[in-house]
Every structure is written in C-alpha cells, then in structure tokens.
C-alpha cells in the first residue's frame, strides 16, 4: 500500500507544484491521475520514487517512509517501484534485452552488470516478459529501431522485471496513436491484475482513464479536487479539474466507447474486475 501524507513540493523558482497532497493507493489498485498540464501530476509520481525531492510530507510504501531514506536505502526502495515513461525513455543505443535487464540493476553488482552477465533467473524472466508483451523475436534489436508501441512494451517489461509492488506510469500513451494507446493501456491493466500490482497512471486522455482505471483522482494546481470512480466524472467535475469548457462531447464519447465493438468490449471486461487470462498469441500479433 502506498500512503502519501501532506506532500508539498516547492521548486527553487518558488513555484509550488504540490500543496499538501494526501492520497492512499491500496495494493492492486489501478488509479488514474488526471489534470491539466502543470497541475503537478508528474511531480507527484516523481516525488514517490524521489526522482524529484519532496519539500515536505511523507511517502509511505508499506510502512517504510521513503522521504528520509539515505542513498543505499533509497536505491533498495526504488527497486520496489517500476516506472513507465511518456517518451518511453529507453536507452536508445542499447538492445531490447539490455534495456529490459537494466530493470535488474538494483539487484546485481556493478561488474556483473558491466559485463552483462546477469543471473540466469533474470534472463529467464526477461525472456518471459518479452514474450508476454509480444517482443521475444526482437531481443537483440537496438531500441531505436523499434516503433513507438514496441518501445513502450519494452519500457513496461523493464518496469516489471524489477518485481515491483507499485507501478508509476507517466503519460504512457502521450506519444502513441489511439489504437496503440488502448493496447498499451490494456496491457498495463492486465499485467497489474496478473501480478497484483498497484499503479498510478498519469494520463491526459480522460476517455482512456475512464476505460482502464478503477479509480480516478483529479489534480488541479497541486491539489486533489476529485477522487472517485470513473463514472463519477461529470461535466461539473471535469470543469472543476480542467476549467470551463463544453464537456458534453468527452462524456458522451466515453459512454459510446463503453458500448462499442470487440476491442471496447475487452476493455470493459478489463475495466470491471478480474480481467480475462491474457492470450499471448493475440499480443504477439500486435506491432
């Protein structure tokens, strides 16, 4: 369980990105964090694994406060949190396998990682995950040869091989086309269910958030202004999060999606509770 208490982030410029955020994410919950650009979504998830240093407040993973940890303890804590990035953030000149195995860096010693001699169990797991995300035929391709969707799958495998308890996902679909976006979101959703992972997913696309998350938190100017189920996002709530706008299109479109074709059907199943056992064949065909 992740518990955030009174989290404040003030940047040296004086901008206050987070104004005392309180948030609890139970084990296994997939939560979407929505809000306008600059609301503090990225800052919030980066304060959890301390890529950004919080100014005040507590971040408890299990019952360990992460905010006071020293260097080594922080590295061990980071192993328990997998992160997935907007622009994939793969190391472009490393191979797919090296990128995935880099998720094990917190567990292996320096010389092993320097010579790429990872334990066989890590390599087995990397192959399993790459198979799971449908990329086991691209193991030795360089990351910069992959398409956007494929790169994000590698990013997902890299996060999962850490054996995390929590996924921090920062705009996973912002650079992807609509179809790939859904595939990626569905994959994250399914993998979380398989491994009982909790996830915080920052996302701009309200419809995707409604489709794939079981809980939605709205952030506006560093404060939580909505916390509830996906179908609680009324025009009034969206106005509170994003400001005045004609929201009828967004809401109606979301409802239509839920009734839509085969893909949306699957999404809705995933959305409800226990998702179907994933079919690797189906994923392998994806690009």
């Amino acid at each position: 369980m992740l518990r955030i208490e009174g989290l404040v982030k003030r940047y040296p410029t004086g901008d206050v990105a987070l104004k005392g955020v309180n948030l609890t994410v139970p084990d296994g919950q997939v939560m979407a964090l929505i809000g306008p650009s600059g609301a503090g979504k990225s800052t919030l998830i980066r304060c959890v694994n301390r890529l950004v240093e919080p100014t005040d407040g507590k971040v408890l993973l299990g019952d360990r406060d992460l905010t006071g940890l020293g260097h080594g303890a922080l590295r061990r804590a980071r192993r328990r949190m997998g992160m997935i990035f907007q622009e994939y953030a793969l190391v472009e000149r490393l191979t797919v396998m090296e990128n995935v195995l880099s998720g094990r860096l917190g567990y292996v010693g320096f010389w092993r990682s320097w010579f790429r001699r990872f334990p066989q169990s890590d390599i087995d797991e990397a192959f399993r995950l790459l198979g799971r995300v449908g990329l086991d035929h691209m193991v030795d391709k360089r990351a910069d040869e992959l398409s956007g969707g494929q790169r994000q799958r590698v990013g997902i495998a890299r996060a999962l091989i850490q054996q995390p308890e929590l996924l921090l996902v920062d705009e996973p679909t912002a650079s992807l086309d609509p179809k790939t976006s859904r595939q990626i979101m569905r994959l994250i959703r399914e993998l979380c269910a398989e491994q009982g992972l909790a996830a915080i997913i920052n996302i701009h696309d309200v419809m995707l958030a409604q489709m794939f998350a079981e809980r939605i938190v709205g952030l506006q100017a560093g404060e939580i202004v909505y916390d509830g189920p996906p179908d609680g996002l009324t025009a009034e709530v969206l106005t509170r999060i994003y400001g005045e706008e004609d929201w009828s299109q967004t809401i109606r479109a979301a409802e239509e999606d839920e009734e839509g074709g085969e893909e949306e059907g699957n999404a809705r199943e995933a959305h409800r509770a226990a998702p179907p056992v994933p079919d690797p064949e189906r994923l392998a065909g994806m690009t």
Partner: protein
Amino acid sequence: MANASAVPAGRSRRWRPPPLIHDARLRWALGLGAALYLALALGTLEINWARVAEGIPRGWRFVMAFFPPDFVTRWGDIVEGMLESIWMAVAATAAGIALSVPLALGAARNIAPRPVYYVCRSFVALSRTFQEVILAIFFVKLFGFGPFAGFITLVVATVGFYAKLLAEDIEDMDPGQAEAVRATGASWPQWLNYAVLPQVMPRMIGLAVYRLDINFRESAVIGIVGAGGIGATLNTAFDRYEFDSAAAILVLIIAIVMLAEYASGHIRRWVQ
C-alpha cells in the same frame, strides 16, 4: 482567409523581418565602426610590391629545391622519426583519454555537483590555454629534448580537447533515459554504464580517432622545437639544407594524414 477579407484593399499591413540589432543607431554605428577599423587595419599593412616581386623567383628556387623528393639518403632516419611520431600520437591519445574521462564527468554541469564542476572546468580551461608549441617548449625545458617531452605535450593538449568536448556531449544527453535508469535503483557507476555511456559512446570513439589524427600532425610541429618525432627529423633536414629529404618527409606526412582522415571518417560513420 477571414482575416484577409477583413482588411480593405490598399490598406494591407507591411511586414519586414525583424533586424538582428533592434536599435537602428546602434546597428549603423556598429556597421560603420567595423568598416572603418577594417580600412585602417588594411592601411597599416604597408605592402612593398617591389620586394614581393623580388621574392617570387627566390621562393620559386626554394620550392624547386624540394624536387625531386629524396626518400633514399635519409630513409633510416625518416622511418625512425615516423615510428616515434606514431608511437607518441597513439600513447598520448590513450593516456589523454584515460585522464579525460573522469575530468569530463566532473566538468559536465548536469551530473557533477557545483564545486566539482568548477574545479574540473578550470582544469580543462587551463590545459586549453596554451598552444601545443608553447607547451612543447616548456616541457622540452623541463624534461630535455626527445619524445617524452612531446608525449607529455600531446597528453595535456588531448585532455584539454577531449575532456571539454566529452563534457559537452554529456551535458547534451537525453535526461529521460538517465532518469529511467536511475528509477530502477541502479547505483551511480551502473547508471554511468547504462544511461550515460551508451549515449556518449559514438562521440567518444569519433573524438578519439579525430584526436589521434591531430596528435600525429601536432607531433610533426612540436618536433621542430625539440620534442622528438618526425618533426625533429624534418627540422634536421632543413638545418642541413637537405630540402629533397625534407620534401620526402612532407610527402609521407601528407600521405599518413590523408590516410588517417579517411579512416577516421569511416570509423565515425560506422559507430553512429
């Protein structure tokens, strides 16, 4: 379209690209000042055309003394000098790079703490201050004539060059990739190995090959002030008025430099 039709005919708005220097007076003052300075500078040259005319046949005789190049008479000395220069260039490049890497890490603003950054930057700036020939004169005084002084000169020059450019490449790296590897719980050396090294590797190799090329050429120049290598052989040939042997050395230097140029171009394209 809506805008265009809203403006009545004959009253279209004018547009000019904005000037580089906004203040018109400053713009003209700078332009005229530069032109005036150039004119005055040219005026101080005092070219004596009579002497130039006299010098041309003398220069021609000098050039003709180079032909035909004589590879035979001093062949032993030439080979020795060449090998010494190549040895100096290779060893100095390797040693220089080994010293440059930690210095470059310290001199990259995005990964080094501020105090370390300033110390390393000043060090790099210091080793870039003096031209190779000046360094060579100093080190020849310090260590005596011979290739060791040349080697040290080239190491210092390599550090100034390589550490600066490598540090700049590290500063230009993609912070996203670096952040992602940090988020896995990697230690600092692992982070360097997985996030930083892959991003700067092509440039490291490219610069190494380029520097090797420069070091060989420089070894010919610093040899003239006593720092060994093919430069020393060349200097001796000039001192003995053996211009044909000097020509042979020059031809060989040109050939090796062209070869190195060609090879380094290839290697740099290949590592991209």
